[in-house]
C-alpha cells in the first residue's frame, strides 16, 4: 500500500468548481483540474483495508485499494489496468456515480472517506492522455454473433465484454447516436458527450458494430434478429416514467423530466429538436416535482435555460445533514445531498404533496396545488403520511417537470412476437443468469433490474455478457463480479 499513515496526514479534498454564476451560462464540465500532488495525497489516504468495504460497496466490485495504491505510486498504466478489469467505463462512473463505495469506505467510520470517484475519473482521464486506453482487439474471433438491443450503459458494457470474448457484436439503438441515457438523459454539464463518443469510438475500433437509428421491433423484426444472431441481449432500459394522475395532468407545461432533459441534450449536441412540443424554461417559474438526481438535473438545466424561478418539491421529509443511527456505516445513507445544480440556485421544499395542476383558460399550466404533509409510522410499521389540515395552497408556475421515477421498461414492445415473463414490478424476469423465458434472449440493465444507477447498468451488462458467453461457448473467461475466474471456470459444467 502507498502510505500507511496517509490517512492521518491528509484530509479529504476535492477539486474546485467553476463559480455558479459563470457555469450556468454553458453546459460544460463544472469541476476544475486537480494537481498531481493533490491527487497523490488523496490516494495516500486509502488504508488498503484487510476488508475493503468499498470494494463490496461498489456494484461493479471495483478493486479500489489496488488502484489507489497505483495512483499513489503514479503508475497510471497499472491503475487503469486494475480499473478496467472490473469497469469498462470509468469515465462515466467517475463523473456521475453517486459513489456507494465512498459511503462504505472504512475511513468513513470516523473521518471523511477517500475520494474514490475522483480518483477513478483521474485515472481514466490520465490514461487517455497517456495513451494507455487503446482498442483491445480480440486475437481470435468465434463464429458467434450477438445482438445487443439498446446502447445505454448496460448495452455498451455487454457489447464490450462480448466483443472481448471474440464474438461478433452488433448494437442496435433507436436514437440517432449510441449512448442511451448517457447521451440523451444526463445533462452535458455532468457528462459531456465527447466522453461518450470517445468510448464508442474505441469500441468501434475493437470491432463492435453500432446501428443507430434502428428501432428493433419497428425497423427490423425480432424474428429476423433471432434468425441472424446466436444470442440477443435486451438492454433497453427502464424508460416508462412514473406518471402523476392528478387533475390537470394534461395541461400544457406539465412534462416528464426526461422529455425536457433529452431536448436540451440534443440542442447541445446540435441536433435539431423536432418535437412539436418544445420545452423551454426560459423566463418561467419552474417547479420540479421529485427530489432525486433527475430532478436535480432539471434544476441545473432550467437554470441554464434562464428560468425565472425554480422550486423543487419532494414528498419525503428533509433528510438529516449527516449519517444517523438509522443508516449506520457502511450503508448508503439517506442524507441531504446538495448537487452542483442546487448550488446554482433553486428553492427546495420537503414533505410536500402535489394535489393538482391548475391551468389557465388556454389550457396552459399556471399553478400547482400542494399540501404540507406529516410523516409518521403506519399500522405495519411502514412510514405513512397525513396531510396537515389547512396547509393547502397554490404555487404559481408555468412549467412543471415530473421527476418521480420510472416504472419499468417497454416490456410489451415485442408482445406480438413473443411475450416476456415479467416480475411483480413489471421488469423482465430472468433465471438469475440474465436469461429470459425466450430461448437465446437475455436481458440486462434497467429493463431487467428496474430503474437504477449507471454503475448497476454497467455491472449487469458485464455479468450478462459472461452468461451469454457461457451459453454460447460452454465456458467463459470473462471476469465475473463476485468470484474468481479460476473458480468460475472450474465450476462451469462442460456443455
Amino acid at each position, binding site marked *: 500500500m502507498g502510505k*500507511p*499513515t496517509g*490517512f*492521518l496526514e491528509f484530509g479529504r479534498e476535492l477539486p474546485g468548481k467553476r463559480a455558479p454564476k459563470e457555469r450556468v451560462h454553458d453546459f460544460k464540465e463544472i469541476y476544475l483540474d486537480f494537481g498531481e500532488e493533490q491527487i497523490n495525497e488523496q490516494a495516500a489516504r486509502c*488504508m*488498503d*483495508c*484487510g*476488508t*475493503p*468495504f468499498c*470494494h*463490496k*460497496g461498489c456494484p461493479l*466490485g471495483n*478493486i479500489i*485499494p*489496488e488502484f489507489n495504491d497505483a495512483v499513489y*505510486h503514479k*503508475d497510471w498504466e*497499472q491503475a487503469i*489496468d486494475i480499473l478496467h*478489469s472490473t469497469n469498462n467505463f470509468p469515465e462515466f462512473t467517475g463523473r456521475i456515480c453517486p459513489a456507494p463505495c465512498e459511503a*462504505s469506505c*472504512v*475511513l468513513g*467510520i*470516523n*473521518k471523511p472517506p477517500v475520494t474514490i470517484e475522483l480518483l477513478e475519473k483521474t485515472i481514466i482521464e490520465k490514461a487517455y492522455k497517456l495513451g494507455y486506453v487503446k482498442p*483491445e*482487439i*480480440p*486475437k*481470435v474471433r*468465434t463464429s458467434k454473433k450477438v445482438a445487443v438491443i439498446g446502447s445505454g450503459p448496460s448495452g455498451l458494457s455487454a457489447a464490450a465484454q462480448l466483443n*472481448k*470474448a*471474440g464474438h461478433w457484436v452488433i448494437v442496435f439503438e433507436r436514437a440517432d447516436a449510441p449512448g442511451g441515457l448517457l447521451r440523451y438523459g444526463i445533462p452535458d454539464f455532468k457528462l459531456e458527450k465527447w466522453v461518450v463518443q470517445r468510448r464508442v469510438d474505441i469500441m468501434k475500433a475493437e470491432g463492435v458494430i453500432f446501428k443507430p437509428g434502428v428501432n428493433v421491433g419497428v425497423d427490423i423484426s425480432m424474428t429476423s434478429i433471432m434468425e441472424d444472431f446466436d444470442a440477443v441481449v435486451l438492454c433497453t432500459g427502464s424508460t416508462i416514467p412514473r406518471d402523476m394522475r392528478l387533475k390537470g395532468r394534461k395541461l400544457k407545461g406539465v412534462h416528464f423530466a426526461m422529455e425536457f432533459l433529452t431536448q436540451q441534450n440534443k440542442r447541445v449536441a446540435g441536433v435539431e429538436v423536432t418535437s412539436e412540443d418544445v420545452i423551454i424554461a426560459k423566463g418561467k417559474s419552474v417547479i420540479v416535482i421529485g427530489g432525486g438526481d433527475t430532478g436535480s438535473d432539471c434544476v441545473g438545466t432550467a437554470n441554464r435555460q434562464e428560468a425565472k424561478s425554480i422550486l423543487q418539491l419532494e414528498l419525503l421529509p428533509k433528510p438529516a445533514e449527516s449519517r444517523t443511527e438509522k443508516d*449506520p456505516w*457502511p450503508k448508503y445513507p439517506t442524507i441531504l445531498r446538495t448537487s452542483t445544480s442546487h448550488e446554482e440556485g433553486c428553492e427546495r421544499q420537503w414533505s410536500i404533496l402535489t394535489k393538482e395542476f391548475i391551468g389557465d383558460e388556454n389550457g396552459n399550466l399556471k399553478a400547482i396545488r400542494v399540501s404540507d404533509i406529516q410523516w409518521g409510522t403506519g399500522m405495519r410499521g411502514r412510514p405513512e403520511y397525513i396531510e396537515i389540515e389547512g396547509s393547502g395552497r397554490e404555487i404559481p408556475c408555468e412549467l412543471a417537470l415530473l421527476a418521480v421515477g420510472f416504472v419499468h421498461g417497454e416490456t410489451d414492445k415485442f408482445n406480438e412476437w413473443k411475450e416476456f415473463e415479467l416480475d411483480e414490478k413489471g421488469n423482465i424476469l430472468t433465471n438469475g443468469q440474465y436469461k429470459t423465458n425466450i430461448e437465446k434472449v437475455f436481458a440486462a440493465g434497467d429493463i431487467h433490474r428496474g430503474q437504477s444507477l449507471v454503475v448497476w447498468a454497467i455491472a449487469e451488462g458485464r455479468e450478462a455478457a459472461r452468461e451469454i458467453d457461457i451459453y454460447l*461457448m460452454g465456458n467463459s*473467461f*470473462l*471476469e*465475473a*463480479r*463476485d*468470484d*474468481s*475466474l*479460476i*473458480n468460475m*471456470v*472450474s*465450476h462451469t459444467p462442460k456443455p
Partner: protein
Amino acid sequence: MRENKNKGVYVPSMEHDACGIGFVANLKGKKSHSVVTNAMEMLMNMEHRGAVGSDPGTGDGAGILIQMPHVFFKEKCKNLGFDLPEFGKYGVGMIFFPEDEAVREECRYILNKHIGELGFELLGYRKVPTHNEHIGVTAKSIEPWIEQLFVRHKTITNPAELERKIYVLKKYTSHFVGHNIEENKNEFYFLSFSYKTIVYKGQLRTNQVVPYFSDLDDERVETALALVHSRFSTNTFPKWKLAQPFKYIAHNGEINTIRGNINWMSSKESLMESSNFIKEDIDRLLPICDTEHSDSANLDSIIEILVLGGRSITHALMMVIPEAWQDNKHMPEYKKSFYAYHASLMEPWDGPASICFTDGNVVGATLDRNGLRPSRYCLTTDDMVIMASEAGALRVDQSKVVMKGRLQPGKMFVADLSQGRIISDEELKKDICTRKPYKKWLDEYAISIRDLPLVDNFEFQYDESTLIQRQIAHGFTSEDFKMILQPMVDQKTEPLGSMGADTPLAVLSDQSQHLSGYFKQLFAQVSNPPIDPIRERLVMSLQGSFGATKNILDETPEHCRQIYLKQPILKNSQLVKLIGLDSPFFKSKVIECTFNANAGKGALEDAIDYICYKAENAVRYGINVLVLSDRTMNANLAPIPSLLFVGAVNHHLIRKRLRAKTGIVVEAGDVRETHHFATLIGYGATAINPYLTFETLVSLKKQDVFRKKMENVEIFQNYIEAINYGLLKIFSKMGISTIQSYQGAQIFEALGINKKVINKCFFRTVSRIGGIGFNEIARETLVRHKMAFPKIPLPKQRLEVGGLYQWKRRGEHHLFNPDTIDLLQQATRNQDYKLYMEYAKRINDQTKKAATLRGLLKFKKRNSIPIEEVEPKENIFRRFATGAMSFGSISYEAHSTLAVAMNRIGGKSNSGEGGEDEIRFEKKPNGDWERSSIKQVASGRFGVTSHYLTNASELQIKMAQGAKPGEGGQLPGYKVDDWIGRVRHSTPGVGLISPPPHHDIYSIEDLAQLIHDLKNSNRDARINVKLVAETGVGTIAAGVAKAKADVVLISGWDGGTGASPISSIRHTGLPWELGLSEAHQTLVKNKLRDRIVVQADGQLKTGRDLAIAALLGAEEWGVATAALVTEGCIMMRKCHMNTCPVGIATQNHELRKLFSGKPEHVINLFKFLAEELREIMAELGFATVDDMIGRSDVLRMRKNIDHWKIKTVDLSGILYREKTDPESVNYCNKVQDHVLEKALDWKILEAARPALENGESVKLELPITNVDRTAGTILSNEISKKYKGEGLPEGTIHVKFRGSAGQSFGAFGARGIKLELEGEANDYFGKGLSGGQLFVYPDREAKFVPEEQIIIGNVAFYGATSGEAYIRGQAGERFCVRNSGAKAVVEGIGDHGCEYMTGGVAVVLGKTGRNFAAGMSGGTAYVFDPDQRFGSYCNMGMVDFDEMDKEDHTVLKTLLENHKKYTKSTVAKEILDRWKSSVKHFIKVMPKDYKRILLERKEKLKQAI
C-alpha cells in the same frame, strides 16, 4: 509406527517422553553392588521428573543398565542346572516374551532355531524373578513374561566378535518374529543381549524397579557402572518396552527429524558392507531402524550398528549428533573437518537430546548442539562419578567432591573405566578427529558449487511473451506480488501480517490451491523446544550437498566426494552448472515433469509413475544429480505440482533403496513462498530453482515496484535471503537446526489428501480426514492450465487477485467479510438478536461456500426439550473467555473494555503476554473491574511478577499461538510507549523480543515444573496450558494433564495475532476440530479427562461453533476475533503497523481516541452466543452443557455435499467416541493434586508470621535437598497478597538453607525475602525474581575452587524483574535470559548469557560461553575479561562495548562489595583489592537501542533544566 488402527484421530507415532537420566560409576572400574543402589537412589530422587497417570501405581517406565553380573549369574545358572563359561564367552539376552504361553513358545521355538542356525549353543533360560504386587493395575494388565537367555558360540572366542554375532541373532530373531508371528502383537522384545551389559526395565515407577526385579537387590549383583532412566510420557498407554535404558543409551529428549532419519537410513542400509559382518549377516540385520520403535530406540539402533560396525561409541555419537560446527569460529580446524566429512555420511539426528551412554566400559554423556536439557556431574575423592539431570540427586559428602560440572551444548563427558580417568571433551574429540586425515580428504574430494566450471553459451531466456500464461498456470496471483514477492525483495525477510486466517482450508476452498496448501507445518510444543533462528543463528545451518552417499560402516576419501551448497536455492547459473555435469563422478539428468492436459482421468498418475520409472533407471545408471523440471510445460503439457513429483520420486527411490545415491534438484515454476520451499525440502528435494519466480522478479523490476533501484543479481539475492530466513524459521519452529536433517524429514501433517496419494508420494505423513486424490489434483492443476491457455484467448490476460491476505470479492472466501462484520456490529450495538441470527446464519450455513470442518457437520435429530428447561445463560457465561491479547498489541481502551465486559458477566478476560497495569487490580468506584482474570505467562515473561501472578484467577502458560506456533514475537521500539514500558518492566522506546521457547520449558517435565512454580505463586488460580492443534496434541494434552495443569486450551491454527509472518498464519497448525477431538479422545482413553478442563478457541464465531466444540469435548470456549469485531474491529489486518483506524490495535494517541467499543456490545455478543447455544441445546435435548461435552455421537457429516473436492473429506475420525466406563465422565469433575503440602515454604511461613503480619524481621535456617523445589514462592505470594507490588522492606525475612536446592529456587521471589543458600542449586534459580535477594555459595566442607565449579544450573533469573543475587561460582547456560531488572553477580557462565535481556545488571567475573548478549535490548552487563577473550564470545548484533564512566565504576564496585560481603568471594576480593588495575579489565556490554534511549533522555533532561 503402526498404522493408525484406532478409529479416532489419535496418532500413536506422536507419543513423546522426557525424562530423568543419569549414571553412577566407579572411575577405576571397581565393581560393587553399591553402584546399583546409588544409581537407584539417584533415580528415585528425580521422581518428580517422571509422571504417573490415572493409575497411581503405574509409572511411565524406569530401568537400569549395568555390567554383566557374572558371578551372580554363574551361581544362579548352576542352580538351574547349567554352567556358564568364563566372562566374555557367553551372552545373556534379557527378553520380554508374550504372556500367552502358546505364542511365547512359538517365539522361543524360532529363537532356538536361530541360535542353532547362527552357530550358537543354547545354555539355558532363566525365568527372571519378578514381584508385581506393588505395580499398577495398568502396568500389570500387560506385564510381559521375562526370561534371560544364556548362549555361547560354538566357534567364536573373541568377545567383540561374539558381541557382533549376538547382535545378528538378536536382530534376525526380532525381525523374524515381528514378521511371522501375528499374535505376538509386538511383545517379543530383547531388552538387551550382550556379553557385557544387561538391562532391567519395565513400566515401573522408579521406586518399583528394585522390588520388582529382586535380582537387583542381590548383593552379588555387582557393577562398576549403572545407567538409569525414568520416563515422563505424555501418555499412559501401557508399553513396557518403551522404558529405557536401551542397549547403549538412555535418552532424554526428542528426535524431531526421526521420519527423515529412518527414510535415509533405509536407503543407506542397502549400501552397507563391513569386514566385521559377512554379507548374509548384514541381510539378517536389516532393517536397522524402523518406525515400529520410538525415536530413542531408533537412535539406540543406529548407535549400535555404528559401534558394532567398528567405530567407538563416542565417534558414533559425534557422527549422529554433531556439534554446531558450520559457523563456529572457536572450533579447531581438525574438528570442523571431522564434522564436515561425516556430514556426507550421515545427516544429524536432530532434536533436543541429553544422552547417557555406555559400551560397558566407557560411560559418558553428551548434549546436542542446543544443549536444552540439564546434565550435572560430579566426581568424588573415592572415584565415584555421578551424572544426572539434577545436581544433588545423589547425596554425596561435600568434602569429598573434587569436581562439579555441567554438560555444555555439543560437549561430551566421558569416564573411561579401563583407563580409570575422565577424558576431557577436547582430548577425546581431538583423538577421534585426527585418526584419519579428514581435512586432506575434504580438500581433495569435496567440491563447492562455486568451483564447478561455468557453462558457456547457455543462458535461460526470459520469455516475457508467455510470462503471464505461465504465471497463471502456476497459480501466481497479483496478491503474491504485492504481499509476498515485493516485500521479500525490499526487506529481505518474510512479510508480516495480522489477525487470524478465516479462509477455507485448502480442501474446502473453491479456489485452485497450491498443493503445499494441503500441508500444515508441524511445530514444537511442550515436548521439545523451538529454536530462535535469529538470535541463536550459530546452531543453524542451510548447508547441503549433492552426490551419492556411501557405505556408512566404512570411511574412505571418496565418501566426501560431494558438491556442496551454502543454501538450497539455485540461481539459474548454478542450475546450468549442475545440468551440465558429466564426469566420472557426477552425472546429471533432467526429467520432465509435465502431463498431458488433454488425456483425461488417470493422466497425472500415469505421468507420475513414468517419472518415477525414469528416475529409478537414471539412478541405477549412475546419475547422482537428478533434475526434475516442469520447464517444458506448454499449452498441451500441464505442469505437475512440484511437491507431488518430488514426493513421488523421493519415496519411489526410498522404496527401491536408491535414495541415498542421488541428489534431487527441482526446477519448478510453482515455487515462490517459503512454505513451498519448505515442503519440497521436507519431502526430499536437495536444491530448488524457482525459475518462474526469478522471471517474475525481473518483470516486477521493470514495473519499478521495488523501493530502490536494483540489478537483477541484487533482487535475486534479496529474495534468496528472505527465503533462507523463512526456511530457518520453519525448521526452528520444530526445533530442527540443519537443512540436512530437515530434508526428507516430512515435518508436516496433510489435511485433505487421500491415502493413495499419501502412500505414493508422502508415505507415512499423517493425514486424518482423507481428501483429494490424483484426479482431483489433476483437476485443480488443469483449471489453472486451462485459464492460462484458453481456447479463445482474451485480448488481455490478467492474474487472479488472490484474496488470501485481504478480503477480495473475486478472491478467497472469508468468514469475516463486509457482510458478516456489518451484521455482527449492528446486532451487538443495537442489541438485536434477530440480526445476530442473520449473522450467525451466514457463518454457520456453509452449504454454498465451505470454510471450516465444522461447516461440514450436522446435528443428528434428537428429542428436543423446551428452551426453559435448558440451563440459563448466566450459567453458561462462566465458560467464556476472551482471547489472549496483550496490552501493547491492542490499546488500553480495547483491552480494558473486554475485561470490564467479562467481569460483569462472570466470564474471564485474558491479559495476554504484556503484563498488566496494577491500577487495574482494584475495582473502580462504579463496581467495574478492569482486572483480567486470566494472566498469561508467555516466553517473554513481560511484567510477570509475584504481584501480577497473585492477582489472577487463572494463570495461562502460552505454549503456542495459533497464528504462529513455535515462534517468538517482537514488539518494535516505537510501540513501547512510557505506559507499556512500565507495565512490561522495560525501557520505553526499546524493542522487546519474546523468544520462541519458554526457556524454562524444554520438555514435559519442565512444564510440570513451571506449573508447580505457578501454583506456588498463586494457590487459588487455575493453571491453564495453551496448546495449538497439531498431530500429537492429544498426547501432549495427556502429558499436560499428568503435569497437573487444571485446564488445557486447544487453539485452532486460525487464531488471531497482532503480528506474525504471513506464511505462519496460513500454514502452521490445524483446525481445533481435529486438535480438540484428538485431545478429548486421548484424555478419555488415558482416563485423564476427569481431572482437567478442556477449553477450545480459534475463530469461534457463533453459538453453533460453541455447540460443536462442546460435543467434541470442550467445556469452555475462548472468543477473541468476534469480540474485537463487536468492539469495532473491521479486520483491517494492520495491527502490526500501529495504524488501526478504529483505535483497537494501536498505541497511537490520536487513533486510540477513535475507539468506540462499549462493554455492553461485548456483553451482547456473549448473550447472543449463549442464547444461540441454548436454542441448539433445546433442539438436541440437552439441559446442561455438561451433558453435551464429548457427545460426538450427536454429530454427523452433512449429506448434501457435492463439491468435487469437499466430498472426498471424511470426518469420522473426529466424530469417533471413545468407549468409556459407565462411571467415568466426559468432563472435569476432579481437582488436581498439586502436592503443595510438601512444600518447604510452610515451615518458612510458620516462622515468618511476625514478618507477614507486622513487618518484623525474622531469620531462620533450614536444610534443603533437590526434591525441595520452588523454595520461597508461596512465601512471596503471601507477601504480594498483603503488601502488593511494594513488598516488604529488603531482607525482612531471611532464610538460610544448606544443601542442594531443587529447581526454581526463589522463583518469583518478592521484595522482602532474602534467601541464602550454602551448597548448590539446580535450574531456574531466581526465575521471575520480583525484588527478593538471593545469595549462594559452596558448602563449607567443599574443597574445590568455587569459581571453577558450577554452582547453579541453567536459565537462572529468567524473566526476573527486580531484586539482586550473588553467586559464588559458575552458572549454566542462559544466565539472566530475559532479565528486565534484577542485578546479579556470578563468577562464570555458559552459552547465551544475558539473552533477550531488557533491563537490570549482570556482572560476570569469569568466563562466558558463546553468544553472549544475543537479542539483548536493555540493561547492562559488566564482564571481567583479563585474558581478552570475551570479544569473540559476544553476539554483537544488538550491543556495543562501551567505555566505563564514573557512574559505572560506582555501580560495579558496590555490587562487588556486596558480593564479597554476602558470599565471601575471593574473586571479588582480589578484584577489589586491586581495583584500579582490575577495573580496566571489565568490559561494559551496552545495548545500542538502550544507549540511544538513555542519551535521548539525558538530552531532554538537559533541555528541561
